[in-house]
Each structure stands twice: as structure tokens, then as C-alpha cells.
């Protein structure tokens, strides 16, 4: 089996989908000639030409909005927003146009499109190259939201996103782009949107996470193992819809849970998962469901690594929950 990084998995998935379906086009800032600032579209313009890999002007509203027009007119655009932080100039397009098109037209018009974006911190990018805005997307009815954490998932989920009949916001934690190399099948495969992955089974505590923070969460689980605590690790992968069943089953089993995410805490995905757990399996809980999250500050440059949940912070929280 070939091995690949996450960024290679993006290229691979796009390449496969473009060759399968010529309605699939890639568009965004620097995606063509430059192959993307992270090279996540490298080689595609050479292969498919400038009509299918479109270098757009510097406007996220134009990118997202034009992608919507193309999607409603029969294409399958995969738009790239260069950094998740830069989705905001296009946010009205996303909220007012993309998310509501199917609904407002009573199903007459649809928006089968993907909006890809590198997200998250840990690359010394400061305020505007580090944010994790997934809560904004998930809070907006009509958008599916995926955040990947492995090359394998990236390929399978991105392909599903391209084939989905709904708009999918597809987030790629940039600090993982080249951090992990993984074996992937040579044949194509799909991973369904909406299903979590159990990364490690365990019985003492459930660690629920997704995206970049999967790294620290898995490390924390290993350390816990070392001190005799069996942690179950769940990677949500899809945030809208998220896999409530898998999460609740795990918490019902372990009775203790941490939700880990590097996004700011206030009104976050972590809050949603924690609130749902409290609502649905309160009686199984042997300790409060704790959230280990990014802080409610803009993303600081000088404290780049401190902002995100560290292994220590996860372990401190685990200790609180285990000792409760």
C-alpha cells in the first residue's frame, strides 16, 4: 500500500474525483499555477487545465458565491478558502446563500459543493492563520461539517464530500498536513459523513476529540494507559451531523468523559457534545463531563503552543474526572 501525508491525500482525492466526474472543478486563490499555498492542489491544473482548476480573484465572497452559482447550475465545485480564518469575508455567502438555498427554494435548487479550508493552530500563524471556526459552520443550519485528522480519512471523507448533494465545509488541520504519513489502499474508498471513528477502545474514560487535537488526545490516552487507565478515544470526524450514538455508547460504558478541541470554548462543538451527554446519559456519569478547549482569546502568536490543549492539560482534566 502507498503511504501518504494528509496534504497528499487531499490531492489524491481531488484527482480521483475530477477524473471520475468532469463536473468536479477546483477553484480558489492560488490553487492553479501555484498548486495551493500548502500544495493541496498541486499538479491538478497541469492535469485538468485552467477551466477545471480555476485561479480566482482574492475574494472569498466571490469564491464561495460563484461556487454556489456553479453548483446550482450543475457543476460540483470544490472551493478552497486559503485559511479557515479567511472564510469571514465570504461568510454571508455561506450563511445567507449556500446554507439556505435548498431550504428556501423548497428543494428546487441545490448546492452540491465543497468548501475546503486549512484550519487550526500550531504553525505560528497568529490570529489569522490559526483559528478553528467550525462552531460557526455547525451552528448554521444547512451546512455539513467535516474535520479530518488522518490521511486515510482525508481521502475517504473528501471524496464523500464531493459526492454529497449538500454543501460540505471540509476542514483540514494544517499542522497535520505533513505531520503524519500513513498507509492508504491503492484502490479508492469512501468514508461516510456522519460517522465517528473509535481510535482506541477503553473502559475507564472516554476522550472525545477531532481534528488537530486528536494528536494530543491520543498521546494523553497512551500516557493514561501507562498509569493503568484505559481510555477510549473517539474521533468525531464529522461535526454536522455528529455521531451521537457512538459518543453516548462510549460514555454510557465509561461513565467519565473529556471533550477535547482546540477551538475556543464559548458556544463551541465541545459545549454541544458535553451538553448532549449531560442531557442524555446523566445517570451514567460518574463525574462531570469536562471540556478541554482552546481559550476564549484571539489566537496569540507568542503563546502559539500554549493556546491549544496540551497533553498536560488533557491529563490534568482526566485526573480531575478520574479522581472525582
Amino acid at each position, binding site marked *: 500500500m502507498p503511504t501518504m501525508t494528509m496534504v497528499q491525500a487531499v490531492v489524491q482525492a481531488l484527482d480521483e474525483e475530477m477524473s471520475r466526474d468532469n463536473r468536479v*472543478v477546483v477553484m480558489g486563490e492560488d490553487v492553479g499555477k501555484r498548486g495551493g499555498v500548502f500544495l493541496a492542489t498541486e499538479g491538478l491544473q497541469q492535469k485538468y487545465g485552467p*477551466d*477545471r482548476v*480555476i485561479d*480566482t*480573484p482574492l*475574494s472569498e*465572497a*466571490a*469564491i*464561495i*458565491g*460563484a*461556487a*454556489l*452559482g*456553479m*453548483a*446550482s*447550475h*450543475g*457543476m460540483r*465545485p470544490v472551493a478552497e478558502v486559503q485559511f479557515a480564518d479567511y472564510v469571514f*469575508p465570504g461568510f*454571508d*455567502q455561506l450563511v*445567507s*446563500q449556500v446554507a*439556505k*438555498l*435548498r*431550504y*428556501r*427554494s*423548497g*428543494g*428546487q*435548487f*441545490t448546492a452540491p459543493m465543497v468548501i475546503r479550508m486549512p484550519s487550526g493552530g500550531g504553525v505560528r500563524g497568529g490570529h489569522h492563520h490559526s483559528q478553528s471556526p467550525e462552531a460557526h459552520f455547525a451552528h448554521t*443550519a*444547512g451546512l*455539513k461539517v467535516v474535520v479530518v485528522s488522518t490521511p486515510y480519512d482525508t481521502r475517504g471523507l473528501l471524496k464523500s464530500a464531493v459526492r*454529497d*448533494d*449538500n454543501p460540505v465545509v471540509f476542514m483540514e488541520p494544517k499542522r497535520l498536513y505533513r505531520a503524519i504519513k500513513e498507509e492508504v489502499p491503492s484502490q479508492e474508498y469512501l468514508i461516510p459523513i*456522519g460517522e465517528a471513528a473509535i481510535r482506541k477502545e477503553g473502559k475507564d474514560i472516554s476522550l472525545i476529540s477531532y481534528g488537530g487535537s486528536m494528536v494530543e488526545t491520543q498521546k494523553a490516552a497512551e500516557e493514561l494507559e501507562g498509569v493503568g487507565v484505559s481510555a477510549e478515544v473517539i474521533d468525531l470526524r464529522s461535526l*454536522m*451531523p455528529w455521531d*451521537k*450514538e457512538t459518543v453516548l455508547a462510549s460514555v454510557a460504558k465509561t461513565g467519565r468523559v473529556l471533550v477535547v478541541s482546540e477551538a475556543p470554548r464559548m458556544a463551541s462543538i465541545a459545549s454541544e457534545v458535553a451538553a448532549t451527554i449531560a442531557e442524555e446519559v446523566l445517570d451514567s456519569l460518574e463525574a462531570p463531563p469536562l471540556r478541554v478547549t482552546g481559550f476564549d482569546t484571539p489566537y496569540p502568536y507568542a503563546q502559539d503552543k500554549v493556546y491549544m490543549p496540551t497533553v498536560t492539560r488533557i491529563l490534568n482534566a482526566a485526573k480531575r474526572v478520574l479522581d472525582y
Partner: protein
Amino acid sequence: MTKQSAQFEPFTPKTISLLTEQGDWAGPFKLDLDQATLKRFYRDMLAARLLDEKFTILLRTGKIAFVAPHSGHEAAQIGLAHALQRGHDWFFPYYRDAGAILALGVPLKEMFGHALATLADPAKGRQMPGHFGSKSLNAFTPASAIASHVPPAAGAAISMKLQNTRQVSVCTFGDGATSEGDWYAGVNIAAVQGAPAIFVCENNKYAISLHYSHQTAAASVAEKAHAFGIPGYRVDGLDVLASYYVMKDVIERSRQGHGSALVELEVYRFGPHSSADDDTRYRPKEEVEAWRQKDPILRFQRFLERQSIWTKDWEESLRAEIKAEQEAALQEAISAGEPPVEWMFDDVFSEMPWHLEEQRRLVTDELS
């Protein structure tokens, strides 16, 4: 250099007009529309006006909750609707386009169904009145957020170009819309892609209470086209023939691969911004009265009268016919019934995720 339209120059210092206020043909070319077409234009303008009036009655009697009257925009809207190839070209309307939508061929029953939010609304009552769309006629269901449909209109045009469909994408909006960033971003991407998009401003001089002179310091919307390197045309939108011919020409130019264009149709809204507005707070009555003297329907009527097409009798029978059609369609729309409450959970996605199933159950439980 982008090719310009065949008959009309962009950026003319004077507004393009073909009919004098007295209803005389003043075009630089020979009028080539047959009588049936001219009559159709007139009928559509009249039907649009009467629809506005009907909506206002329904509003007063509490049957509908909102209307954004288009009276004063009829010549512009009917002219442009006839310049499109219906069912082939795409139209991205805004909320004040009921006249254009009607002339495009959306059935009256659907329009009333939409205004009343009954099952006769192809959009299932999801939005406020004034947000007409139709998949079968390629009329993109509008959102209320001003100018937000401009980038999608650009995108549709890019798709047309990439797929070589020989369609065009026509997008309308008000003068106020031209201040939104999304307006600019949308026009720019269409223009640089050389896409067949025609952006049409129905400039009625006001955005709710804001006069155009406070909207922008640009002397005209048409000249904003310079920012995109595309031609801009300033047209008398009270003149249905000028609106039609310029739009036709500009559309053909785009269809033939010469890229995007911006057209400003100068109109005036006779009524308030919407049923929620009191326009006397910001517009002098005399100003409104002076514009009403330039009624686009009357101007075209005078023209048709000189051509011996319009007669009082015809007018009367036409009005009776239209009103009867409206009344019948209204009754059909009403009797279609209301959309079931649980439908509010459909169409968020193509399939229903668990959380919406749960939320739907909450509502059905509550109602049972």
C-alpha cells in the same frame, strides 16, 4: 478590450431612450417588433401593475403579510424579461421583481401561493412574500440579503461559459445593492472570467430612505462598470422599448462570448419601499407626483395609441381578463391548503439527520 453591443454605446453621457415622453419612437433604428409582441409587452406591464394592486388589497385585508411594490419598475422589468430566452437563460431576481417574474412565465397560481405561503408555492412557504423563484424557468430563488445573489449569478455564468451552453445569467438588484461588498466581488469575478453575466440595476434613486446621492459619489451606476473593465449602459427604465432593446443587445453580446456587462435601468418606485414603510418620512409628495406623471405604462400606451394598437375597449377587456385570471389563480392558491408543520424540517439537507428527526418529533408530539 471587451466587445460592445451592436447598437448601443456604453458610457453614453445621456441616458439611452427610444420613446419620447409623448410616446413617439425616437430610436436610431427601425422598430422591428410585431404587433403581437408589442401587445404582449403592454399586457405584461398592465398585469404587473394590477398584481401590485392585488397584493396591496390582500395585504390590507390581512391575507398576506408583506409586499414590496414594483409599480414604476414595469417597463424595466417587462423589457428585460422579454429579452431573455425563457427557460434557457437564467434569471437572478431580487424581491422587487414580481413584474419580471410574471412576464418570465411563472404561473400566477404559484405567485399567489408564494405570497400566501400555501402548497401552491413551489418553495413550500419557506420564505416571506416577494421571494419568487422557479427551477423550471431558471429563476433562482432569492434570499433577502441584499446583493448576496450577485456572486451566485456570476458563478452560474462561469458554469455556462465552461460548459459552453450559450446561456446567459441576468441578475437584477437595486441601487442600494451596489454598495455591498458582495456586489462588487461578484461582478468582478464574472468580468475577469469573461462570463456571460449581465448585471442589471433597477435604479429607483432610493434604498428605503437613502437617496442615491448618499449611496455613492459615482454619478451613475453604469460608470461603476469601469471598475471591472466591462461596458456600462445607462437606460431609461421607464421606456419599455429602450429596456428591451438594450437588454436584448447586451444579452446577445454576452451570449456570443464577449463577457459581462452592467446595465442601469433608471426607474422610480411609485409606492413605499414595502408595506412596512412610510415613504412620506423621506420623500416629498411632489417628487413622487412628478414621477407618477412619467408612468411607464402610460408612456407605452400613448405609443401604442399612435400605432393604433391601443384602444379604450382593448384596455378594458384586458383589465377584466387579467383580473379574472388573478382571481381564479388566487382561489386555486388558497385552496391548495397550507404546508404541513413538519415540512419545516425538510430540505435542510437532502436527507434528514438524527437531530432534525428528533426536533421534528418534538413538534409532532407537541401538536398531537
